[in-house]
């Protein structure tokens, strides 16, 4: 008898929680999901926005990766997709079939950082051609020492570390160095956890790895960021300054949010996106990304208010496109 009553009480308790009265009108929820690279920014904005609204609007942020985020976005499950690369052709098609339109908004820059161990005495700068020689598919099994990349370097093993193939960082890096997204040698150590890459570079004198600037900044004393020779022939190290004036290329990239046009009709979503673009810059800096220039945010805000939908990329990533250029382009679906 005791047993049945315990179970009944527990069941009633559970049911009670389920039907607890809720004030639906006062509690709107804005749903974000997607890239783990964009997550810290969206988290910071969501945190501040909820404080500013005194809890009247609820914001949730998930991490499903850029691709996973777009899947949910095109099913209409979320309002905003966090993306560390532009929407792809196949994702555009899925969204089009579901009748979901979107406004593409760059929210910050990320500087991909190529790092080596501080005891590595031979490498300070790298050219894109050298990076290509290390990472292109043809290097697999052949380019296994530093000497094989550049005869002036020692004949020590070249140990490469990078993010896994599902990551937007991997897509962009391969596009920028090898020239084709996802085209990379397979015999490097891949980890989805960037902190693992950081630890590998810190401990191995022969290591070379790439990851987002946010992972380099707090560990700057324990590793050496390599300067990259840009298209003008200058060797530039990763820094917010170099990203903003465009000299750190081709490894700096914009990261995005995609707002569903249907959700943008809702007052609280509109307010959230405007908050993101107008108050986001210091937050972006705080989580170690590089904010866009003031006028770029203004331009994005104007695009959003005008409801300028579609993507500027047409389904493929482009290296070296400035934020101003992409905001000025006609949107496509």
């Amino acid at each position, binding site marked *: *008898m005791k047993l049945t009553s315990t*179970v009944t009480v527990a069941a009633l308790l559970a049911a009670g929680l389920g*039907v*607890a009265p809720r004030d639906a009108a006062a509690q709107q929820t804005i749903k974000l999901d997607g890239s783990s690279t964009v997550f810290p920014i969206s988290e910071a904005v969501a945190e501040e926005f909820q404080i500013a609204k005194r809890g009247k609007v609820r914001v949730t942020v*998930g991490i499903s990766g850029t691709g996973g985020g777009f899947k949910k976005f095109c099913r209409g499950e979320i309002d905003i997709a966090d993306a560390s690369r532009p929407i792809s052709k196949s994702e555009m098609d899925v969204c089009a079939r579901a009748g979901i339109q979107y406004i593409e908004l760059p929210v910050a820059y990320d500087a991909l950082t190529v790092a080596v161990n501080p005891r590595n005495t031979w490498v300070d700068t790298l050219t894109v051609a050298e990076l290509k020689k290390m990472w292109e598919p043809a290097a697999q099994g052949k380019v296994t020492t530093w000497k094989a990349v550049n005869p002036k370097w020692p004949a020590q093993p070249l140990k490469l570390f990078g993010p896994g193939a599902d990551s937007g960082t991997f897509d962009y890096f391969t596009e920028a160095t090898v020239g084709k997204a996802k085209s990379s040698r397979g015999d490097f150590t891949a980890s989805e*956890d*960037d*902190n693992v890459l950081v630890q590998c570079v810190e401990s191995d004198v022969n290591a070379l790895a790439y990851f987002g600037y946010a992972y380099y900044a707090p*560990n700057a004393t324990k590793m050496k960021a390599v300067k990259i020779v840009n298209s003008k022939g200058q060797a530039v190290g990763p820094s917010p300054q170099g990203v903003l004036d465009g000299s750190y290329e081709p490894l700096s990239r914009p990261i995005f949010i995609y707002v569903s046009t249907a959700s943008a009709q809702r007052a609280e979503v509109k307010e959230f996106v405007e908050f993101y673009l107008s108050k986001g810059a210091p937050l972006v800096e705080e989580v170690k990304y590089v904010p866009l220039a003031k006028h770029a945010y203004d331009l994005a805000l104007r695009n959003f208010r005008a409801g300028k939908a579609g993507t500027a990329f047409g389904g493929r990533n482009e290296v070296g496109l400035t934020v101003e250029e992409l905001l000025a382009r006609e949107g496509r679906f």
Partner: protein
Amino acid sequence: MSAMRAGVERRKLLDKLFVVLGLLVLFAALAVLLTLFLDLVRQGAPRLNLDFVTSYASRKPEQAGILAAWVGTSLIMVVTACVAMPVGVAAAIYLEEYAPRNWITAVIEINVTNLAGVPSIIYGLLALGLFVYKFSLGQSILAAGLTLALLILPIVIVATREAVRAVPRPIREAAYALGATRWEVTAHHVLPYSMGGVLTGMIIGLSRAIGETAPIITIGALSFIAFLPESLLDPFTAMPIQMFNWVSRPDPGFRVNAAAAGAILLGMTLLMNGIAIWLRYRFRKRMNW
């Protein structure tokens, strides 16, 4: 005579050796747990305070807390317990007391045992299709609780069957002799006497469920959420998800938070086990055979 004595001596020595070996193994296991726990506490010490359990996640590691995570985990555990307990116990009692000995029962038994070995991610995928989309429960606490209930169901069933089987046959026969029906025998005698074992199985199941990450990521647990759920259909996050998120963040400050959250999660598990032991003790005291 002396040969016989030597044999006895040798066997006694073996006996003692086995005791020592058993103790050694036991201490090794306990030492691992203790080292792990103490290490987490040591690393997480700066964040192990009341603020940590009463604030939401934040971009600032020193302000971030686990309020949404521990509330989410607790609610999921309540749902899991409320579903797995009645279903698991009913299934076990049916199999043990009612089911006829035929091939259907045999197939069910084999499958229950097999289910215990299915990887948890498979349950996650099943739940994504079934609970989240088919039943339209969405990415909710209810869906997560049901998923984990499925996951621990085999554990609860097997443990309950063992407990029910341990109730001496004469108790049942005495009750039948006084004219009790099969249900009365089960509800008044078998179940109360086996309650200790049932609870143990339940807690082993819940202890496994509380640390599961893969299935709840699959059904869509969130990473940032700064409000408490008002109903079981609200979105959620859970302790393992929060820890996972913190461990992979660039700012080293978050690793302290992850350690602190780990210590608290272990603490929650130990607390659950403690409650189970206390309940078992109470049930045993009431038994008067």
